[in-house]
C-alpha cells in the first residue's frame, strides 16, 4: 500500500457471481487490489472481463457475492449514502430537458446543497471542462465529446473524492478521445481526485494512469498490474516516447497471456 492514509479503494478476494437460468456466470474471481488516494488507476481488459462489474461494485450499484470491498474505508453502501464518489457512464446520460448548466446542477439539486452556492459551483465546473459558453444550450445541441465533458463536470459538481469512470470516451473518435485524455489528465492534476477508469484502449490507459490493472475474462480476474512511471506533464511527446511503447507492450503482453487465443472474442 502507498502512504499511510486509508486506501481510496480496497478489495480482498472479491467475488461476483451472476446467477442465471443458463447457469452461473463468474464475473469477478478473487480480485485483490488497493488503490491509494490521489491515484489514477485504469482497469483494462476484453469484453466480459468484469471491469465494469468491478466499477459497479465500487459504486454500490450491485452487491458482491463474496470477499471484502471498502471504498474510502467504508462499505460501498455507506460510501454511496455519503455521496463519496462521482460516476461517469459510457454514454453521457444527460437529461435532455435540462440545459447544460441545469444538468451540472442536477446532483446539487438532488443533494439539496445550499441554493446560494449552487449556481456558482456549476459555472465553475463548466469552466473547468471548458464549456462555460454553452451553459444555456440543450444536450442535443452539443457534440458527443462535449456532452461527455458535461457529464464529467456533473460528476465533479458535488466534489466527491473518488471518480469512477466507465469507458467515458469509448464512443468517441480517436482524435476527440486523445484530446479529452489530455483534458482529463489536467482535471485530475488540478483536483487531486482519485480516479478509477475503465477502458479497453491500451494507449489511453497507459497515457492516463499511475497504474494499469489488466483483467482477463472467463472468469473475470485480475491478471496483473503495470506501474506507469511516465513523467509529467504528459503530452503528445509522451505518446511517442520509447518508454510509452515499452509500457503499452507490457500491458498488451499481459492481455494476451490471459486471453490464450482460444476464446471466440
Amino acid at each position: 500500500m502507498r502512504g499511510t492514509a486509508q486506501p481510496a479503494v480496497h478489495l480482498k478476494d472479491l467475488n461476483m457471481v451472476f446467477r442465471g437460468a443458463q447457469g452461473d456466470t463468474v464475473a469477478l474471481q478473487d480480485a485483490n487490489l488497493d488503490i491509494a488516494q490521489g491515484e489514477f488507476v485504469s482497469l483494462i481488459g476484453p469484453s466480459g472481463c468484469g471491469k465494469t462489474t468491478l466499477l459497479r461494485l465500487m459504486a454500490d450499484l450491485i452487491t458482491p457475492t463474496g470477499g471484502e470491498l471498502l471504498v474510502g474505508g467504508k462499505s460501498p453502501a455507506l460510501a454511496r449514502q455519503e455521496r463519496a464518489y462521482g460516476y461517469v457512464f459510457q454514454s453521457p446520460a444527460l437529461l435532455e430537458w435540462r440545459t447544460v448548466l441545469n444538468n451540472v446542477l442536477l446532483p446539487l439539486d438532488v443533494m439539496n446543497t445550499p441554493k446560494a452556492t449552487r449556481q456558482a459551483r456549476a459555472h465553475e465546473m463548466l469552466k473547468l471542462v471548458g464549456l462555460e459558453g454553452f451553459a444555456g444550450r440543450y444536450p442535443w445541441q452539443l457534440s458527443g465529446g462535449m456532452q461527455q465533458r458535461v457529464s464529467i463536470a456533473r460528476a465533479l459538481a458535488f466534489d466527491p473524492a473518488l471518480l469512477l469512470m466507465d469507458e467515458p470516451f469509448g464512443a468517441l473518435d480517436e482524435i476527440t478521445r486523445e484530446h479529452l485524455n489530455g483534458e482529463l489528465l489536467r482535471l485530475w492534476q488540478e483536483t487531486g481526485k482519485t480516479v478509477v477508469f475503465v477502458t479497453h484502449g491500451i494507449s489511453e490507459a497507459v497515457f492516463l494512469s499511475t497504474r494499469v490493472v489488466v483483467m482477463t475474462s472467463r472468469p473475470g480476474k485480475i491478471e496483473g498490474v503495470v506501474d506507469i512511471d511516465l513523467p509529467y506533464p504528459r503530452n503528445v511527446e509522451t505518446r511517442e516516447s520509447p518508454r510509452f511503447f515499452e509500457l503499452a507492450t507490457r500491458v498488451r503482453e499481459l492481455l494476451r497471456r490471459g486471453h490464450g487465443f482460444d476464446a471466440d472474442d
Partner: protein
Amino acid sequence: MIIVAALALALYWPLMLWVNAGAAQRSLDNGAELGCTTAIACATQLRNPVLPAPAQLGNSLRAMSVPPLAPTSVPYNTLITAGETVVGLLIASVLGIGLAVALVGSRAFERVTLPWLIASQTVPVIALAPMLAVVLGQYGVQGWLPKALIAAYIAFFPVAVGVAAGLRSPDPMQEDLLTTYRASGWQTFWKLRLPASLPFLFTSLKVAATAALIGSIVAEISTISFSGLGKMLAENSRASDTLALWVIMLYGAGLGIALVAVLGLLERLVTPWRAGQSR
C-alpha cells in the same frame, strides 16, 4: 401538402359533376323545376346533392353560421361539442396520468388492472353511451356532463398507455445516475420519470383529443341531446339534408384540427427543449 390540396381541388369539380349527374337527370326526367336544362348544368343545383358545388356549400356555410350564437347555428353547436370534448379530455388526462403513475409504480396493480382497462376499451362507445346517459340521468347528471364523461371514457386509455410508456422511458444509466446520488424514489419520479414522459404525454393527448371528439359526437347522436354537432348531424341526416351535413362535417373537422393545434402549441410551451431538435 399544398400540391395535394391543389390536386384535390382540381379533381373535386369533375367528381362532383359525375356523382350528381345521375340524380340531376332523374329530376329532369320527372319534370322537376330546377331552372336548368341539361344534367350537367343541373348537377350544381340539386337540393340534396351527394357532393355540393362550391357555391352551394359556400351559401349553406354562410346561412348556417349566422347569427353565430343562435341555438340553431353550427358555430354555437360546435362550441357546445368543443366544451364537452375539452372537459372530457381534461378528465381523461387526470385519470390517464393517475393510472399511468399507478401502473408504473406497482407491478401488482398493473397485473390486476390492465386486463380490465383493455376490456373497457372493447365495449363499443355507441352501445355504452345511451346506457351511461340513462344511468347518470338517474343521479341527476344531465346536459353536457354525461357527454364529457363518455368522451373521457374513450380518451383516458391512450393517455394512460402513453404516459406509462413515457414514465418507463428513461435510460437505465440515467436511473443508475440518480441512484449514485442517493436520490429518493420521489426525486427520481419528479426529476427523471415525469419530465421524460412529457413528450409521450403530448403524443397520446393528440390521439386522445380526436378520440374524445368522436366520443362526444357519438354521445350526442345516441342520447337525447338538445345541442351539439352530433344532435345537428342526427337531425339533418333524418331530413336527408346533405348540404347541412357537409357544413356540420366541415365544422367538426375544423374543431378536430383546432384541438390538435392547441395541443401542439401547448407542447412547444411545455417541452421547449425539443424545439428545433430533429426527431
